[in-house]
């Protein structure tokens, strides 16, 4: 089965300095990969690079042009819009307006649909942010700390949604600290992939190699 997302010899940089290199993995339908590593090791940078927000330093990212849905730390919610208005906007952007109702139901947000986003608790906001993924209709979810500020019940809710997504032929790439209770997920520890200094053969951040 062809991979939905394939990463080959990827090196990523933050502020012009390489922080991760030799990252390799591939995700096929139904697979989930959990990225782990200490704070500041480059999880967010790696995800942003894969989502296409910044160019890689080296290596290749292979995915269909409209395969990836990205969810960052911030949920991108508008405080003065209601829950359903927020969701309808993203559904319209992705051309999937018919999915709004089911996404609200799946994330248990139906009762809150008419509330303004500013009156939600942190966990409810997070759930709304994750409901956004359901209305993108995209197969590969790239998630940065998706369970932050969620309680145990909501984590389970999210794990169920994730499982359903995988069962439908989706894939997920998740950076997280805690166990999301997804037995089938594979874990990739980023600690050994830390970029070496250029003089030790590591990838160079564009400018300083010219001095060596």
């Amino acid at each position, binding site marked *: 089965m062809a991979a939905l997302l394939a990463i080959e010899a990827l090196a990523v940089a933050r502020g*012009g*300095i390489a922080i991760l290199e030799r990252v390799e993995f591939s995700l096929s339908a139904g697979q989930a990969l959990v990225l782990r590593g200490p704070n500041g090791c480059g999880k967010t940078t790696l995800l942003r690079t894969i989502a296409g927000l910044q160019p890689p330093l080296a290596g290749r990212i292979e995915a269909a042009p409209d395969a990836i849905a990205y969810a960052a730390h911030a949920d991108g919610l508008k405080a003065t819009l209601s829950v359903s208005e927020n969701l309808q906007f993203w559904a319209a952007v992705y051309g999937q307006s018919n999915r709004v109702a089911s996404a609200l139901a799946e994330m248990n947000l139906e009762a809150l649909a008419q509330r303004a986003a500013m009156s939600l608790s942190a966990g409810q906001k997070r759930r709304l942010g994750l409901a956004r993924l359901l209305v993108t209709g995209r197969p590969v979810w790239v998630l940065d700390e998706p369970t932050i500020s969620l309680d145990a019940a909501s984590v389970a809710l999210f794990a169920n949604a994730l499982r359903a997504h995988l069962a439908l032929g989706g894939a997920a790439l998740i950076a997280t600290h805690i166990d999301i209770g997804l037995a089938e997920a594979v874990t990739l520890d980023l600690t050994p992939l830390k970029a070496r*200094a250029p003089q030790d053969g590591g990838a160079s*951040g564009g*400018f300083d190699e*010219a*001095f060596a």
Partner: protein
Amino acid sequence: MSIWEYANPKKFMQTSAWALPWFTGLAAITLVTGLVWGFFFTPEAANFGTTVKIIYIHVPSAMMAINIWVMMLVTSLIWLIRRHHVSALAAKAAAPVGLVMTLIALFTGAIWGQPMWGTWWEWDPRLTSFLILGLFYLGYIALWQAIDNPDTAADLTGVLCLVGSVFALLSRYAVNFWNQGLHQGASLSVDKQENVSDVYWYPLLFCIAGFILLFIVLVLVRTRTEVRSRRLKALEARERLA
């Protein structure tokens, strides 16, 4: 052997270290010759009196103010297209020099305008365009200083330089349309050299060459500084990471 070799920071540092003393010497000789000749050994002009001596700084500085912006446009384009860091840093290094040239052109223009037109400031198209050019320099420099990440700053200032160039040209036209000025174009501008007699022309040539050489020296010195500061930043960032 291609010209792009000099876009390599190491190669640039080596070559500029070698070239700098020569350019400095040449710039000093030419500039001093031109200014001394112009200031001490030129006659009064019939219609301008001794104020004619101001052209030896006004004309070269005005030329440089425009040319430096053009040079920044070219180096910004090289950075945006070919990603040579030295090119972006040269644009950054040139901007303050361009601002100083613009200021000199404006000040000497105002000082000259006072006895000639009877007013310090006239909303003449050329003076006004230079004022606007000065604002563009200010914005460009301010944007460089506001952004921490050097590559982001280089990209954004490059785009600003591109858009700014178009609007600077447009402003020049708009201002012309808005007020047909008092500024004597033909009698003194260098492209109409037949209007300037040789007595004034030769020292003026020296001054122009002197200003160009001075600019080259300043840009080399300042680009070397920027390259070092960029290198310093990279080392510091790597140290933080380790």
